[in-house]
């Protein structure tokens, strides 16, 4: 890691001075980047891919060697059929999509009011609204509450819990953003007789694009990959991808079946990785733009 610091240092000076970076400096930098990536990312991901392509006998002690013959597709097929991945995939979709959509819609509506009404009571309401950014959800009692209203172990219950947990993130990001939108746009429309609903959906919501994109990414990441809350809420009555991974990895069936666990991990990560591969530029600029103002 110290090498990395030194590698960065010449660069720092470059951005200041007018001169172009020296050729050797650039080459050393490239070598360092490749080296750091090889150690920090190469080892775990190489292990993931080669192990997922091995037979059970070869994978029992995970190592860096290539499989004697690749059976990645066979392993994929095994986890898809025996691991009930397809059901879990649709479970994840059924829970994630409505949670993210509703959290963003409800959160944006509330944020509009919170950003525009600046009275003291409203400031308190806002503080309550973003309290979930800091406070940990009461996961045991929320499960009990769902049991009482008959939603435990169901998709709507899970969706509600996710919305409750991540609403604060949405309100925080969106309220901050709406405050930077000049109010004159709304006033012009209001003078033309537009009702609040029209103003919100035709003026405010379209302007929220970048910040909603950031919030979507973060909330989707959290929900798609969550296992802790779904362990409590679903209690085995519904399958989600990470929950399924947890179950198969803890169950005797998969004990020492590293090749299957890793095949599962690759398949499970693919949807988000593919989305990321096609939108990485937007995602990265969205996060960097939204987080620090």
């Amino acid at each position, binding site marked *: 890691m110290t090498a990395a610091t030194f590698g960065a240092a010449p660069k720092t000076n470059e951005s200041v001075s007018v001169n172009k970076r020296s050729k050797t400096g650039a080459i050393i930098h490239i070598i360092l980047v490749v080296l750091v990536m090889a150690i920090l990312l190469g080892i775990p991901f190489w*292990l993931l891919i080669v192990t997922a392509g091995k037979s059970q006998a070869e994978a029992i002690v995970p190592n860096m060697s290539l499989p004697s013959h690749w059976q990645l597709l066979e392993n994929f097929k095994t986890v898809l059929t025996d691991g009930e991945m397809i059901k879990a995939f649709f479970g994840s979709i059924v829970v994630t999509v409505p949670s993210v959509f509703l959290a963003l819609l409800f959160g944006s509506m509330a944020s509009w009011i919170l950003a525009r009404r600046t009275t003291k009571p409203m400031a308190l309401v806002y503080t309550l609204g973003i309290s979930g950014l800091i406070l940990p959800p009461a996961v045991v009692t929320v499960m009990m509450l769902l049991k009482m209203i008959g939603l435990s172990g169901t998709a709507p219950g899970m969706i509600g819990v996710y919305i409750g947990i991540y609403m604060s993130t949405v309100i925080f990001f969106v309220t901050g953003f709406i405050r930077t939108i000049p109010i004159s746009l709304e006033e012009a429309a209001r003078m033309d007789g537009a009702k609040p609903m029209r103003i919100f959906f035709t003026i405010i919501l379209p302007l929220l694009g970048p910040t909603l994109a950031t919030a979507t990414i973060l909330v989707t990441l959290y929900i798609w990959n969550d296992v802790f809350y779904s362990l409590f809420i679903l209690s085995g009555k519904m399958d989600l991808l990470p929950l399924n991974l947890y179950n198969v990895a803890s169950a005797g069936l998969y004990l020492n079946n590293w090749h299957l666990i890793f095949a599962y991990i690759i398949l499970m990560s693919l949807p988000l990785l593919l989305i990321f591969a096609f939108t990485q530029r937007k995602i990265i600029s969205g996060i960097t733009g939204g987080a620090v103002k």
Partner: protein
Amino acid sequence: MSTLNTSPKARAARRGREGGGTLKKLMQQNYPVRYLVPAYIMLLIFFFVPTVLNFIYAFTNWSAFSKTIEFNGFDNFIELFQSGTLLRDLRVTLVYAILVAVFQNTFGLILAVFLEEDTRINRFARVMFFVPVIMSALAVGYIWQAVLKTDGALNQILSFFTGQNIDVAWLGSTTWTIVVVAAIHGWKWMGLSMLVFLAGLKTIDSDVLEAAAIDGANRFQVFWRIKFPLLAPAFTFNVATSLLGSMNGFDIVQATTQGGPGGTTEILNLFIWRTFGQGLYSQSTTMSLVLFVMVLIIAVPLIWYLRRREAKIL
């Protein structure tokens, strides 16, 4: 609402926000409170009510084994305290959170500085370092378990390079395993910290850096005296999110050590899940309340301090 009587009111609204009764009515007309309702109903049912219930049920004997639920005062707390679990898990969670914050942000800052320039390879590296952020934390935990097992990949690599047989039990030490697991957590999220620091670095005015260079500041001085202080907002965001994320952690520890060896990596959420599975709901709830109070005591003053630090610098 006709156009004629709207415009003067709108103008009045622009002039003074904190006005009299008409303004209040106007605000209600233009920004109706009913827009708050869906969001706050969800918050109420799925966040606030459970939180309040948490304060109640932590003082009961609620469990899978008793038919009735009765108040038992501080019995749960006393029991957890006397068994030593309360203090141990609190300490483990605190140590874990601090280590994660240190690892995640040190890695993230070094990467950000290292990959700051917009060259093709740097851009590629940034994307690659973001991949662990996208992956499931549980999956990350299993991968690292395979790397760090005593007969796992890392020991094999070390044995290969040193020529000796190395069999360090990375996940089996009662002292050091928590550091290893926190490093894995830091590794998973360092890409996010990196991006936030990069965003902060991008906002620094190049004139300031040029002025420093003309004044003869070396690159260490430029970094520590100018760039690092100006990264204050990014620093606040990263420290707060990494601390909160790790205090609420579960997946990575569960996938690598399951709290072991000997409970030395049992963070609070692990205890909550374990005792919940045993049917001891009130103990689980009590620990959940402990976590709540701990986060409140640590996070609120810390964020307040970091924001004040920002205000002083900027």
